[in-house]
């Protein structure tokens, strides 16, 4: 059991892969911290993580360098570009009938 600092853009499954070497244990991490698997971690700094299985030591070592840490959440702040075309335009918003 240890406390792990969350890096920018990391999700619970990222932490599970990084610390336990197994995405399958994501739910375990979420349950341990009283979170849901899809919860946003931006307002949380640390997570409690169980001990990793010794058979996964190679994967854990690979991710032990923060430069390799997985971070799959999109933090760019960009939302998808609005779609254009007659099927997506709104009356009074994109065009006006006169």
């Amino acid at each position, binding site marked *: 059991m240890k406390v792990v600092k969350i890096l920018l853009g990391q999700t619970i499954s990222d932490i599970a892969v990084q610390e336990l070497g197994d995405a*399958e244990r994501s*739910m375990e991490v979420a349950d341990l911290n009283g979170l849901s698997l899809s919860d946003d971690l931006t307002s949380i700094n640390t997570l409690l993580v169980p001990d990793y299985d010794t058979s996964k030591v190679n994967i854990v070592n690979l991710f032990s360098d923060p430069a390799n840490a997985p971070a799959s959440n999109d933090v760019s702040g960009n939302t998808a570009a609005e779609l254009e075309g007659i099927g997506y335009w709104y009356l009074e918003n994109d065009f006006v009938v006169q």
Partner: protein
Amino acid sequence: MARSIQEVFDAAVTEGIRLATDANLPDVVTMFGNTSRVAIWKILFYAVAFIIHALEVIYDLFRAEIDNDISLLKPHSARWYANIAKLFQYGFNLVAESDYYDNTGLTQDQITAAQIVAYAAVVEQQRGIRIKVAKIVGNDLGALASNELDAFSEYMEEVKDAGIKLLITSGVADDLKSTLRMFYNPLVLAADGSRIDGTDPSPVQTAFNNYLKNLPFNGIFAPSLMVDQLQAVDGVVLVKDDLWQARYGALDYTNIDVQYNPDAGYLRIDPSNLAITFIPQSPIL
């Protein structure tokens, strides 16, 4: 129990290939043949498999919570005591502060071998409850050895409800004594009770013992039902029962009037206590 991500993934791939083959979509079948680690279809399937796995884990957690709530709320019935008695594993320690065993890493055969209590019956008494148990010895029932009974008693003390007084017994079978007059058809049976065609040397005694063995554990023994069984044996015309007696432990034999509830939970007869007089009799139609 939640399946692993790989199991869900494999199941989805198998089903996908089957559907694509059935619908005659060779392109899709070819797609499944793409073994690249980063093939798009694999990534998509993995993502879905991950979600299904997570959902199954949530169901497991939910179930565990509900089970826990129920176990805390429900007052235990006599049936529960009988069930929990049969879950006893000889030579294993309970998980601390709980009423179950940690069986990870054990095969079902190992667990079954450790569960020595084959039969359990619970009888309510004025003070507490009495639990009668028996194990399988050879192909018959038998009493638990004293070590086994000590371990079992300790186990029951751990798992029982607070405030319940338990009396745990595992005795050898109650003894039955019987004297019968057997009116037999001399065309089928011989004067010693054996079948004339030589297929069975003692069909009556076999039926007698089978009836005792097939009684439910802690079941009621009724002589008139036994007589019915004996009269169903081929070659037996009539049965007159002159004596039914039973005893448990080293007590004296007492007469059985209409029915008898074996103290040990089961009843056996020593061949020397079964006296049968065979009398020839024409079949009564």
